[in-house]
């Protein structure tokens, strides 16, 4: 545009000629910037694709293997898509042990822990965040300290304790040690602390009882944080191998991860296809939960308070 204008005026005066040159330089720079932006865009997309590949490949490999025949899992070079989809592997995995019982146990324990944790951490974190009482700092300190004690240090006393209460090989024995969560209390306390005092005062003036303030006003406001914590907790206990292994001596309360591990031991050689099918059975519920709560989780990480 500028160039055209300059041409019609003519380069009679030095001033306009210089201006034209400057415009040229400017448009040149703009082109360069545009090109640079395009290159960066390509790099960005490539980088993201690379990341997706890194994370998705093991998963795709697992699905692929779970549908192969046993010899097919070991051929070289490996194939990504099996010749025939062997759905039988899933049935085989399911039949290596009492999988229905494993599955039910896993659900009962993970959900049981989740419910108990919600019942304990919401009031606890609300109290730590909102009430001034003697020793609150000290008590919160104790909660924080428990975060630093590794499970390996306490499993033996817990085992003896459960044994004394005859809780070994029971659902309750696997649920109770996780009835509360220091991490959850900490996370939720921070979330509650961000909510302005006036909101609670307004609710008090609205004649709301304390439990009503918590349930109807506070909890909905920290929902993204709560959902994130619930998801972390659910995944951790769904996948947990160590505690169920230690606290059970027979099949009555054993969970899926123990069952999957047992597939390896059934025959002399590791049947990778059955094993992978078992793993898929293990992760499928988590994937479902994750897809259901995805939006809430993303919200939790970009959460910037309520105006």
């Amino acid at each position: 545009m500028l160039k055209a204008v300059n041409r019609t005026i003519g380069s009679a005066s030095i001033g306009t000629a210089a201006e034209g040159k400057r415009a040229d330089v400017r448009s040149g720079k703009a082109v360069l910037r545009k090109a640079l932006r395009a290159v960066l865009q390509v790099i960005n997309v490539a980088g993201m694709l690379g990341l997706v590949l890194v994370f998705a490949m093991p998963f795709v490999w697992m699905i692929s293997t779970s549908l192969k025949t046993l010899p097919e899992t070991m051929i070289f070079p490996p194939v990504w898509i099996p010749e025939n989809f062997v759905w039988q592997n899933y049935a085989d995995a399911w039949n290596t042990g009492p999988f229905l019982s494993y599955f039910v146990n896993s659900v009962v324990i993970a959900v049981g822990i989740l419910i108990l944790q919600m019942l304990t951490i919401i009031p606890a974190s609300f109290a730590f965040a909102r009430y001034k009482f003697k020793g609150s700092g000290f008590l919160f300190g104790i909660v924080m300290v428990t975060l630093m004690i590794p499970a390996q240090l306490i499993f033996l006393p817990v085992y003896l304790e459960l044994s004394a209460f005859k809780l070994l090989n029971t659902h309750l024995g696997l649920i109770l040690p996780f009835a509360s969560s220091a991490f959850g209390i900490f996370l939720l306390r921070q979330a509650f602390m961000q909510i302005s005092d006036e909101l609670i005062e307004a609710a008090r003036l609205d004649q709301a009882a304390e439990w009503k303030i918590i349930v109807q006003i506070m909890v909905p406001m920290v929902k993204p944080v709560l959902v994130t914590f619930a998801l972390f907790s659910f995944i951790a206990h769904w996948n947990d191998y160590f505690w169920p292994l230690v606290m059970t001596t027979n099949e009555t309360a054993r969970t899926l991860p123990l069952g999957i591990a047992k597939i390896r031991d059934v025959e002399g050689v590791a049947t990778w296809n059955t094993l992978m099918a078992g793993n898929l059975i293990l992760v499928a519920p988590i994937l479902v939960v994750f897809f259901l709560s995805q939006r809430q989780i993303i919200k939790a990480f970009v959460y910037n308070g309520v105006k």
Partner: protein
Amino acid sequence: MAKIELKNISKKFKDDTVIQNLNLTIKDGSFTVLVGPSGCGKSTTLRMVAGLEKQSDGEIWIDDTCVNDTPPGMRDVAMVFQNYALYPTMSVRGNIEFGLKNRGVARGERDKLVKDISEIVGLTPHLDKKPQNLSGGQRQRVALARAMVKQPKVFILDEPLSNLDAKLRNQMRTELIQLHKRLGTTFVYVTHDQVEAMSMGDEIVVMNKGVIQQADSPMKLYHDPENLFTAEFIGTPAMNTMQMRDAQGLDIQASVGIGYVGFRPEQALINAGPDSEGYTVEGEILTRESLGAEQIYQIQSRSGVFFVKTFLAPVVTADHVKVTIPYEHLYYFGLSGERLRSGVQANRKQLATVGGI
């Protein structure tokens, strides 16, 4: 409808005394404004009436009941907060009816009340929206509706307009005045803005450092301040005051010690004729603010810097002016700032040489 009485109220935060021995009666059906600089204890006083803060000492009476031990929800008081404090996860309807639900009002009646109120404040089309999807003015209305729907004895408003822009603030100000007229309920309003206080209140309580300086009608407060603080706090610009020893050329016979002398900016005359009698000061005009109908001049004199306001008068172009303040418009204050209403007599003879630079 309710009268509120505060009797010997004190409030301490740890060792810090915010309010000491405060006595105040808020009249039934009045629009009472508590005004003062920030940190003067006005909000604390308000919160004690609402029950959100417990007084360290003294009694609070609403009508004929002492509410010292009544929780906030049971005092029949509704409050509008500065940041509105709307429940963000509830819809507008949910916000308005939350208090009714807690009182156990039946669904049918609740719906009717919400409908009536939202018509009054103009929220009917927004009832199902969340507060974050509303503008500032609409949020303000939700906060008002939430308070009104409970039909309380007392409305408490804590700087409700300070989050709005200037135009909306003026609009809401008149709306609030109309609302008060319509409801006839006692309104207690806190603000740090004396213009807001003067324009809205029919009873103004000026506070400073936890002490009531003066509680009076706006006009009384303006024309007859009790002390230096009130005089300097009320009015735009505020009253010009100077220490007595700086007031050169002012010839006074007094039976009491005078600490300060003051005058309202609009009562001073610039370059008045020779027949006008009064205290005369000469000075240079530093700045001119033209607000259309009125002009505000900042004048530097030997007695200090002061303001003069004129109405519908031609702009003074001269830099050097003579300012005359009629003697009857001079206010005298004692050494500790208390108003001196008698015992002072200014000399009525025209002074030959005064002030000037």
